[in-house]
């Protein structure tokens, strides 16, 4: 789950990572009121989960209330690369002497935590990695050992940060590491991590991604779920508890298992079509799940046909077929369905489907045949 900058900064503050005083607001009057409280000059920052906000005009420096009003009016509602700005973050403007970069994430290959620190912040770290890889000091951290202040000190020296801010930088890194681990982050990144002319080190931006699997131990994450950027389809799927990802194609997909769902997207593509979504309906044969899955897909205006791809393992094909038949009986579908049913007890399942077959419900013997048929129906 990706957070907005303001949410990341609010979490940073809780872990004693220095940030500028600021407030998140959703309308112009509130923006000006917040700026009056914070003290000018302020920065008005669009809250969207996409890079390049500054270039798009989503970050402005306001010297007084009038400017703040103008910028907040312009930025709220603005479209940045397909993301609408609903929230702006108002914070006291900072003077900048240096811009650094710091982050923690998981190195899946090493199976350890991975920290990156660089004196070249304020630009995409991928760019630094390409153009000047030596400017990034990297460390691996064994999760069992954790990260000590002494290691951080060596790390700061290796990254060639300004020697006068070593102590302050170490404090921020220790705090950021604690946040990364205790906060159950997939990614905790500060870019830029700035040094002010009077030698203070603090986070000017916050990029935080949380591990959804850890939600059970973070009651406060429920608030973040409410502000997740989801389209209508994804919101409906989230509420129904389905594993769903919205795509742009015209063939709706339902499969049992994440791997099978991914490969269903692949075969639709190989058959010359495009998938409208990824949807893993999971194990089991619950008719209710099929009802909500089919409803969400059929309500998608992009969808022209639906491909249900089931491979029976422990869950028997006959049970799944019954679930599908029940579901189809309960909803009035606009798009035709193509089913491929294979695996355990598949023949019995196909027999259950047979009396219901026709123009709106077709069956195909293999995954590839079903994909071709679904694509043909979608492009007809």
């Amino acid at each position, binding site marked *: 789950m990706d957070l907005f900058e303001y949410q990341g900064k609010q979490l940073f503050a809780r872990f004693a990572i220095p940030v500028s005083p600021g407030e998140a607001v959703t309308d112009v009057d509130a923006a000006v009121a917040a700026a009056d409280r914070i003290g000018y000059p302020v920065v008005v920052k669009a809250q969207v989960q996409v890079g390049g906000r500054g270039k798009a005009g989503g970050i402005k420096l306001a010297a007084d209330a009038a400017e703040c009003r103008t910028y907040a009016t312009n930025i709220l509602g603005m479209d940045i690369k397909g993301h609408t700005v609903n929230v702006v973050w108002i914070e006291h403007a900072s003077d900048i002497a240096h811009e650094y970069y710091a982050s923690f994430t*998981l190195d899946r*290959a090493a199976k350890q935590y991975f920290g990156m620190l660089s004196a070249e912040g304020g630009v995409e770290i991928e760019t630094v990695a390409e153009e000047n890889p030596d400017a990034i000091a990297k460390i691996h951290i064994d999760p069992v050992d954790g990260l000590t202040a002494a290691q951080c000190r060596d790390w700061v020296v290796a990254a060639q940060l300004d020697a006068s801010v070593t102590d302050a930088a170490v404090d921020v890194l220790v705090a950021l590491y604690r946040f990364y681990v205790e906060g*159950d982050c997939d990614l905790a990144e500060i870019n830029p991590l700035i040094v002010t002319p009077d030698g203070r080190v603090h986070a000017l931006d916050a990029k935080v991604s949380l591990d959804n699997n850890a939600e059970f131990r973070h009651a406060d994450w429920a608030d973040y779920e409410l502000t997740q950027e989801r389209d209508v389809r994804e919101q409906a799927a989230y509420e129904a508890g389905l*594993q769903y990802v919205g795509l742009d194609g015209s063939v709706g997909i339902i499969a049992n298992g994440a791997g099978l769902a991914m490969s269903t997207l692949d075969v639709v593509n190989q058959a010359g079509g495009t998938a409208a979504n990824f949807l893993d309906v999971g194990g089991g044969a619950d008719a209710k799940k099929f009802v909500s899955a089919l409803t969400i897909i059929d309500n998608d205006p992009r969808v022209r046909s639906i491909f249900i791809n089931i491979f029976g393992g422990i869950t028997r094909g006959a049970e799944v077929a019954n679930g599908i038949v029940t579901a189809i009986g309960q909803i009035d579908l606009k798009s035709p369905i193509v089913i491929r049913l294979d695996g355990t007890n598949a023949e019995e399942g196909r027999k259950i489907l047979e009396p219901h077959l026709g123009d709106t419900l077709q069956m195909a013997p293999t995954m590839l045949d079903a994909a071709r048929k679904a694509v043909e129906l979608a492009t007809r």
Partner: protein
Amino acid sequence: MSIFVDETTKVVYQGLTGSQGRYYGLLNREYGTQVVAGTNPKKAGTDIEGIPVFASVADAVQATGATASCIFIPAPGVRDAVMEAAEGGVTFVAVITEGVPAHDEAWFYNKLRRDFPQVRLLGPNCPGIISPGKCNIGITAGHITKEAVPGAKNVGIVSRSGTLTYQALYELKAQNIGVTTCVGIGGDPVPGTSFIDCLRAFEADPETHAVMMIGEIGGSAEEEAAEFIAASMTKPVSAYIAGQTAPAGKKMGHAGAIVSGGKGTAAAKMEALAAAGVKVGRNPTEAGELMVEIVKKL
């Protein structure tokens, strides 16, 4: 032969008294697995259809000689359950549970490697492992597999996906090809057992003659496997990578199935595997057909 588990493996089920643990524990026993015990600190002394329940893995090991554990404990308790298994004395731990926090996985993976190097961890978020005809630990449907036949050309399977694994097992059975062991390593970011661990074991197993590998987007485990195959494997390998059309930045069902920062794409994995001499199919069916061709030529 088989890898990691066989007919001598004695398994204790952590979470046997829960609905999932009970369902699969009994199915595994029906298949022929030596299901010797369950654990539940509140129900020690009771039994589940004749399978004795103990307070801890240590007690179960002492009383039954269990050598492996299968964990069906809900995600919040998995970290403690894994350590209980290792401290209790088993040497193989399969975690079926989905939804374990990545920080917990990273922690117990490294803790085991350091303090319990003899313990092999499988998963989390995996279907388990089956050595057809000998032992089935986890949620794989036993009847869709064909036993390895001594003297015939048998295949080993290693996979990050559950359903695609079942499909592979099923297609090989339809072609009358036996499987020595099928390992589901799971779809999480820090899998206890890697592709390479399985490839190395299959390479060393005299009864396995070829290996089928099913990967998916995210991470670099397939690229690392390709390097290993090029350098150290003599047995032929076929592969399929799921998610060739997956969008970047989205988790595709599995916690570890995500293309981020341009890394972890199916294209890069397929290319690396093909360069290592692996026969790469564009879809599961094609990968299965390639495996059949390989076996026929052996």
